[in-house]
C-alpha cells in the first residue's frame, strides 16, 4: 500500500468522499465551536481526529455526517450536497458514541433498519444482515434484544448496522470509548481489516492516541477555544496491522509523537489535558 500522503496523479480527478471547505460552526450563544476549517479525505484513507475536549472534533464529525449545518463554508460528499448522497450508490454510514440501537427490536432487526428504510427486499436484506452479523462476530445473536448483550456486543451490532449498507464512507464518533482495553483492541483490529478489505474511507473521532496510532493513515490533532486543526501526523505503516505492530518501535514512535502534539494542542487551548 502506498503512503496516503502521496496523492497519485491518476486519482486527482476522482471525487473525494468528503471535503470540508472552510467550515465554521458558531453556536447561538456566540461561542465559536469550530474556526473555519478545511479537511479533505481521500478514498481509502483512515483519518482519526484527536484533541482535548471542546476542540470541536464531534462537531466536525457531525458536519461530515450531515447531522449539523455549518454556519459558514461548505461540505461536499463526492463533490455533491448531502441531499444527493446515496443517489449514485455511494453511501455513508455513521456510528455514534452509544450503540443507538432500538431497544424493542432484535439485533438482526436493528442491523436491517437501514436496508428497510431504503426499501431493500426482505430476502436480500436478511442475507446481508446475516453476512454483516457474522463478519463482526455476532452470528447467532441476531434474535437477541440489545439489552441481552454486553456493551461490546451492542457496539458490534451498531457497527454491523453501519456496514450492512456496504458504505464507502464511514464516520465514527468515539465508538469504543466505553469499552475495556481488550475489547477495544480486538474491535480496532477487526475494523481495520474490514475497512482495508472494502477500501472504506473512514473518519474516526477518538480520545485515545494509541487507538489513533493503531488505526490511522493520518491523524488530525485539534485544539480548543476556538476549535481548530492544530496539527496533522501521517502514519505510513502498512495497514495489515496487528499486535505485532502494537509492540513495534514504529508504533511507539507514532504514539509518542501524537502524545507530544496533543500536549502542545492542549497548551494552545489554554487547558490542561490529562
Amino acid at each position, binding site marked *: 500500500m502506498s503512503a496516503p500522503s502521496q496523492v497519485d496523479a491518476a486519482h486527482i480527478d476522482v471525487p473525494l468522499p468528503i471535503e470540508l471547505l472552510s467550515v465554521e460552526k458558531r453556536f447561538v450563544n456566540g461561542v465559536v465551536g469550530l474556526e473555519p476549517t478545511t479537511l479533505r479525505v481521500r478514498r481509502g484513507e483512515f483519518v482519526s481526529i484527536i484533541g482535548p475536549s471542546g476542540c470541536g472534533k464531534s462537531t466536525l464529525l457531525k458536519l461530515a455526517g450531515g447531522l449539523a449545518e455549518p454556519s459558514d463554508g461548505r461540505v461536499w460528499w463526492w463533490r455533491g450536497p448531502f441531499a444527493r448522497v446515496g443517489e449514485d450508490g455511494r453511501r455513508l454510514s455513521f456510528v*455514534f458514541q452509544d450503540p443507538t440501537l432500538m431497544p424493542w427490536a432484535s439485533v438482526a432487526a436493528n442491523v436491517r433498519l*437501514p436496508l428497510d428504510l431504503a426499501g431493500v427486499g426482505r430476502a436480500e436484506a436478511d442475507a446481508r444482515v446475516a453476512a454483516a452479523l457474522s463478519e463482526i462476530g455476532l452470528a447467532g445473536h441476531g*434474535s437477541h434484544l440489545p439489552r441481552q448483550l454486553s456493551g461490546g456486543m451492542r457496539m458490534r451490532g451498531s457497527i454491523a448496522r453501519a456496514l450492512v449498507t456496504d458504505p464507502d464512507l464511514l464516520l465514527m464518533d468515539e465508538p469504543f470509548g466505553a469499552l475495556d482495553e481488550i475489547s477495544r483492541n480486538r474491535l480496532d483490529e477487526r475494523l481495520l481489516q474490514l475497512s482495508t478489505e472494502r477500501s472504506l474511507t473512514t473518519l474516526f473521532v477518538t480520545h485515545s492516541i494509541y487507538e489513533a496510532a493503531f488505526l490511522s493513515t493520518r491523524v488530525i490533532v485539534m485544539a480548543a477555544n476556538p476549535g481548530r486543526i492544530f496539527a496533522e501526523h501521517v502514519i505510513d505503516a502498512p495497514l495489515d496491522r496487528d499486535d505485532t505492530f502494537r509492540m513495534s518501535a514504529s508504533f511507539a514512535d507514532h504514539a509518542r509523537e501524537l502524545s507530544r502534539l496533543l500536549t502542545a494542542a492542549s497548551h494552545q487551548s489554554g487547558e490542561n489535558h490529562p
Partner: protein
Amino acid sequence: MTPFLQHRDPLPVIAPVLVGGIILGLWQVLCTALAVPDYIFPAPTSIFRALVANGSVLAGALVNTLAVTLLAFAIAVVVGTLIALVFVQSRLIEISLLPYAIMLQVTPIVAIAPLIIIMIDDTFISLVLCAAVVAIFPVISNTTIGLRTADPGLLAYFRMNKASRWQMLIRLRIPSALPFFFAGLRIASGLSLIGAVVAEFVAGTGGRSSGLAYEILQAGFQLDMPRMFAALFLISLAGVALALAMAGLSRMALRGQGGDDL
C-alpha cells in the same frame, strides 16, 4: 411465556389476601360483638347474603356499568391516540389545542354531566360520552409524551438515513411511545369506570339500562346498607379486574415487542 397472573414469587398474592382476611374477620367480629345493626354498618356476612339475594339484579347492573365503561374506554383510546398523533405532527397544532384538552380535564365531570345528559336523548350514549371525556386525557397526554420521547440518537440516525415522516412514525415514534401509551391505558381504564359511575349518579336513571350507581342510590333511599355495600363491592371488583387486564395486556405487548423478529 408464563401467563401474566402466574407469579413466581407467591408473596405479592398471599400477603394482600392475608391482610384482607384479617380485616374481614375483625369487621365481622366487631359487628357481631357490638351488635351493630345492618342499616348502620353491615357485617360481611350480611353483605354476602345481599349479594346472593340480589344476584340477578346486581349482575345486570354490573353488565350495564361495564358496557358503559368499556365502550367509553375504547372511544377514549381510539380518539385520544388520534388526537396525540395530530398533536405531534406540528408544534402549532399542539399549542393551539392543548389548553382546551386541559380545560376538559380540569372541569369536573359532575359539572359537565347534566349538560351532556340533557343534550343527548339516549341515556346510554350520554353515559358513554361522560365517561369517555374523563378517560381521554391520560391517553392524549401519555401518548403525546411517548411519541415525543424517541431517543435523539435514533432520531438523528433515521434523519441521516433520509427516513420519511411515515417511516419515522411507524418504526421509531410509535414503538418508543408504547410503554407510555400502556401506562396511559391503565390510568384511562380506571378513569372510565369512575366516569361511568359518576355519570350514572348524575343521570339517576333506572329501568332497562340502570347500572351499579343506580343500585347504590336505590339502596340508599331504602336504607338497605348490605345491598349498597354489595354494589360497591362489585364496582371495586370491576376496577381491579380492569387494572389487572391492563397490566397483563401491557406486559404482553411490551414483551412481544422485539425478539422473534427474524
